């Protein structure tokens, strides 16, 4: 029954482009349901509001390919948003931005140190950091919302609110970062090492790869992306709550998984992650447009995640059902 699956063309196609095909089907479905769905301003809007999630997902893709998890990105994004907003009024945007990046990178370095050099389990470390960074943010802000005093007189808004060449800046940042990180992952020696470390850390060590350093760098990259996301977020609304990033870690993870990165490490690409991010964004938007309650989106996301990952591995193993007895 399942045997012929592998050799059929459908199987081969699904194996390579399963996620893309699912994506196209959803786009068509929603477009039929609501003709506004593909309207340029809507598409632009979805991409723009996916940019923050997307930027974070880029970093997490590195972490996941290196065989680890990062559940702290949501909390960390709240942290960087709050910090940059606070410093904006204290030391001015030109200093606030690098200062915020430095602080966020410190957090990333701390996690990277724990997971990379001390070899602690990343699920638990980042779970702990999720809570700890939230505590840190609350301590920093005293629990209050953080707002820029003079919202009209600051150039800080460019990162979130303006456009260049007709494209909103958040999309430009997302695109640029995706291009750079995509090249880094696919083409550079560092990228290769990330795959090796995630695929088999022991063999990577035996091949003279400094595994700890690679993992550490992945977390730094992730923190860099989080800081960028925090910057866009802060610039976009020029004010924020302490909980702005809460729960994003799971959405980010869902996007990366939808993109087909294996949680065991060693596989995934930036391009696929972007597709995953867009799928999530368009589902959310599409369901809102057809007037379904927000919770329908939960159920749909569930079904899509499982179908997407299932088809992906089914195509790889050449049969639909798992061979587990």
């Amino acid at each position, binding site marked *: 029954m399942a045997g012929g699956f592998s050799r059929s063309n459908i199987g081969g196609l699904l194996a390579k482009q399963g996620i893309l095909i699912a994506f196209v089907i959803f786009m068509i479905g929603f477009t039929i349901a609501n003709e506004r769905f593909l309207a340029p301003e809507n598409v632009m809007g979805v991409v723009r509001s996916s940019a923050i999630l997307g930027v974070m997902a880029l970093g997490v893709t590195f972490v996941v390919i290196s065989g680890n998890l990062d559940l702290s990105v949501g909390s960390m994004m709240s942290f960087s948003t709050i910090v940059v907003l606070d410093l904006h009024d204290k030391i001015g945007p030109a200093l606030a931005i690098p200062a915020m990046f430095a602080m966020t990178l410190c957090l990333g370095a701390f996690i990277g140190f724990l997971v990379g050099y001390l070899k*602690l389990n990343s699920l638990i470390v980042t779970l702990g950091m999720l*809570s700890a960074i*939230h505590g840190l943010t609350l301590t920093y802000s005293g629990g209050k919302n953080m707002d820029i005093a003079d919202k009209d007189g600051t150039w800080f808004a460019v990162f979130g609110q303006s456009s260049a060449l007709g494209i909103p800046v958040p999309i430009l940042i997302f695109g640029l970062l995706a291009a750079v990180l995509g090249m880094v992952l696919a083409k550079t020696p560092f990228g290769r090492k990330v795959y090796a470390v995630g695929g088999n850390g022991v063999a990577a060590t035996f091949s003279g790869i400094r595994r700890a350093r690679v993992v550490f760098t992945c977390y730094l990259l992730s923190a860099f992306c989080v800081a960028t996301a925090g910057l866009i977020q802060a610039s976009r609304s020029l004010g924020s709550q302490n909980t702005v990033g809460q729960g994003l870690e799971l959405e980010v993870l869902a996007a990366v998984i939808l993109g087909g990165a294996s949680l065991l490490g060693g596989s995934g690409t930036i391009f696929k992650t972007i597709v995953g991010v867009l799928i999530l964004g368009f589902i959310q938007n599409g369901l809102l447009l057809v007037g379904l*309650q927000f919770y329908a989106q*939960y159920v749909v996301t569930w079904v899509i995640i499982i179908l997407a990952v299932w088809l992906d591995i089914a195509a790889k193993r050449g049969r639909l059902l798992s*061979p587990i007895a």
Partner: protein
Amino acid sequence: MNNESRTRLIKKGAIWGFILFELVFFSVAGSYLSLSESAFMDLDNMLLLLKQSAPIGIIALGMTIIMINGNIDLSVGATYALAAIVMLDSMTWPVFAGFGDWVIPVSWILALMTGVALGAVNGLIVWKTGVDAFIVTLGAMLGYRGLVFMYNGEEPTSHLNWTLVDFAEAQFLGLHTATWFLLAVVGGLWFLMNRTVHGRNAYAIGDNREAAVNAGIRVGPHMMINFMLIGFLAALSAVVFYSESGSVNPNDGELFELWAITAVVLGGTKLTGGAGSIVSTLGGVIAIQLLRKGLGYIGAGTETVNLVIGLILIAVLFLDRQLNIKAKGELKV
């Protein structure tokens, strides 16, 4: 070899040592910082502690067997909420109108069946599709939560049945009803994991799945049973808790999975499966509850609680690793 069994013993004892440390710390710190007149280590307080450990505890115990089996379940919080809704709502269904208080066991059974069914769905997907349990249950965590909202929109579902509340608040031999349930689950699962073929096979599957498959163990059904069990336990946890509180918000139980996993890890269960102990998980649950209670007792604010709980988790992991470091000259990979 003697040495190894000793370090293993130390590791098992570590969580209880940590609990002891917490007790001493909060008693001492409390005598300076606390406003309360009663001591921290008061018997009633400890009995309360056990009772309060029950909701997360029962789920964490279920999580232990799932993790020993080499899987993980992130959907327990949503299962817990859905089971609670079924229990509370079913008590008001017209079909059961003439049942009087007999509606209570009926609604319990319905709730537990809901839990088992949701667990079975997860188990079946993991089994038949071969998708990793982390992903399957991450999806289910969203999906089941969606079902929770669909049931009653954003409204809480409430039904206070005072007979039920009285039962749930009762104390028997000094222990609260919830505590009895917790202890019964500990006993039951200990027996299951250590004495039955299913339990031993679950260990084997988590330890080396390929070996289990090669040995002809039917991995799928065992995983399925364990997922049904954790669904059952998440529902049982809801039954125990909501019998007493009578109302469930649609977002109740969020983050329960993370707390349960934390407790399991504190209890020393291997994240990759194959090793772990039911009793140590109970220790992990108590340690967390004690930490929360103690931090409240000495007047720590929200930000401190978050910071401390997060860092403790990392510290425990670090200590666990230090305990595991072998002699000098270890392979550096």
